[in-house]
């Protein structure tokens, strides 16, 4: 075959552009840029505004601006009797209202000195509903986190399963999200007849679903690639910044107020405290935090199982049991200061009360919210990362703006 029949001969000059560029790369400006993320951005989980200083795609500085959802909780709490504040407490962390109510009710009961007289059945019911709500809250945290970084399916699966919890809680309290179920000194109403069986059914149903979740999301290669070694929060920084909850446990400290303080009936229950161990990357990265949440769901199921055993055995519903029996007619604590704290799904929820002993309205009711303090660590760990990783970090902090802004 004659060689000159080849129609195209490769020469290095052939790859040069036929039309030269209009712009010259040396004359381009390269400088820092301020980008505003939120407050209406879906991946900021509500109305969080981030002022981000960018150098190309590298985040140099993050300044969170909050307060868009400020509803004057503390001012309201200074103007209402203690029992009327509970609906406001619901609206702090609005995806885990039962846990908030539990913490608040516990605080006022301690001030009144009736916290040791609460009937055991009431305490077990409180723990059941609080743990159910903890699972629902973690479902939202994990589901939306997956959606933030590109996994769509787990969100729908988790929303579907969360619906079962909301229906159970609606059955008990009459509301889907903001329950007003745990009252100071008791409960709004005893559990409906048959609740225990349905709850057991739910626990049986959810266990294989969690297995599915772990396969499709937590052990997913893409998910691991997006979250491992991202947003590493060292333990000393976490403690110094006051971080609590799954974030602190993700950094490797076995610290859970349910165990440390042993409030309510938690000392009688058998459960583990999962911590992050750096299985996929470094200890305290986004993957660890998410994995801690998944493991906590398993522990919550264990707790619910044990509580249901008690509620159908030792502390079974009797005809004359009245969960409102101990509710005081007039809530008038002695003059004192009290700080109470409890473990809610995001961390340590604390209430500081000052009572004057003369009225049934608190002189001061400060809410120490965990999302607020957890969010304040964001500027520390979001330096020198990529913008996409910033989104991954925000999701892994699991902020609920209702609690940040109060």
């Amino acid at each position, binding site marked *: 075959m004659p060689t000159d029949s080849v129609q195209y001969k490769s020469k290095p000059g052939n790859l040069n552009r036929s039309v030269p560029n209009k712009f010259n790369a040396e004359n381009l400006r390269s400088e820092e840029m301020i980008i505003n993320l939120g407050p209406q951005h879906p991946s900021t989980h509500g109305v969080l505004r981030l002022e981000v200083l960018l150098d190309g795609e590298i985040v140099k500085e993050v300044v969170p601006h909050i307060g868009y959802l*400020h509803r004057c909780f503390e001012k309201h709490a200074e103007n209402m009797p203690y029992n009327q504040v509970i609906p406001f407490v619901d609206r702090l962390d609005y995806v885990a209202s039962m846990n908030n109510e539990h913490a608040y009710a516990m605080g006022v009961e301690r001030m009144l000195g009736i916290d040791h007289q609460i009937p055991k059945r009431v305490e077990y019911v409180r723990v059941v509903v609080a743990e159910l709500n903890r699972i629902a809250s973690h479902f939202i945290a994990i589901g939306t986190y997956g959606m933030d970084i590109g996994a769509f399916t787990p969100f729908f699966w988790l929303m579907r399963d969360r619906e079962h919890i909301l229906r159970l809680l609606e059955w008990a309290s009459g509301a889907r999200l903001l329950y007003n179920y745990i009252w100071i000194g008791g409960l709004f109403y005893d559990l409906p007849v048959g609740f225990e069986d349905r709850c057991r059914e739910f626990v049986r149903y959810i266990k294989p679903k969690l297995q599915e979740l772990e396969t499709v999301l937590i052990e997913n290669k893409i998910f691991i690639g997006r979250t491992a070694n991202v947003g590493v929060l060292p333990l000393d920084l976490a*403690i110094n910044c*006051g971080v609590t909850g799954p974030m602190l446990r993700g950094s490797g400290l076995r610290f859970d107020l349910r165990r440390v303080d042993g409030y309510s009936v938690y000392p009688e229950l058998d459960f583990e405290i999962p911590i992050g161990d750096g299985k996929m990357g470094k200890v305290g990265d986004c993957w660890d935090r998410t994995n801690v949440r998944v493991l906590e769901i398993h522990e919550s199921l264990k707790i619910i199982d044990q509580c249901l055993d008690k509620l159908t055995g030792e502390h079974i519903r009797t005809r004359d049991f009245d969960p409102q029996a101990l509710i005081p007619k007039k809530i008038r604590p*002695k003059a004192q200061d009290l700080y109470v704290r409890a473990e809610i799904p995001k961390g340590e929820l604390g209430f*500081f009360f000052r009572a004057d002993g003369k009225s049934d309205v608190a*002189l001061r009711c*400060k809410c120490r919210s965990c999302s607020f303090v957890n969010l304040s660590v964001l500027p520390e760990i979001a330096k020198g990362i990529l913008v996409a990783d910033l989104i991954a970090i925000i999701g892994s902090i699991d902020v609920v703006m209702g609690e940040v802004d109060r």
Partner: protein
Amino acid sequence: MPMSAFDQILLIVKESCKHADPTVDESATPKAIKIAKEDLTLTAQNLLQNPLTYFDMLSCITGIDNGPDAGTMEVVYNLYSIPFNHHLMLKIIVPREKPEVESICHIWKSADWLEREVFDMYGIHFLNHPDLRRILMPADWEGYPLRKDYKHQEYYRDIKVEY
């Protein structure tokens, strides 16, 4: 007789207080120690660094207004020590006319936002705070909402403010 944990803490607080003797409030839960505002930084530093207390977590900072009649405001710090499981409440009283406290941001980083919130709601100034701005209210809001004599402004940017 072995010393109780609280007595141990009180001893350390006493050693670090140069300006006024600390007083104990037994009715508070956890037990509270009132100290002079000038002693705060040193006390906090010692409580964190002393190996017998090691208060490594600052949980909460609360501002309290005692009203115009009393003429004072209070700042309450809730400390917690993870290794020893100790709780402590520190109280500072500041005059209402010129409310100023030294910031403890450099000791616990969690104080940053918590102090900003107290400033936002009560107008208590934290000296040497790196970035003392309003945090929950808008930057151009007038007055400090949680003070007992607070009256909200009638209009905010031509929008009627109603309670």
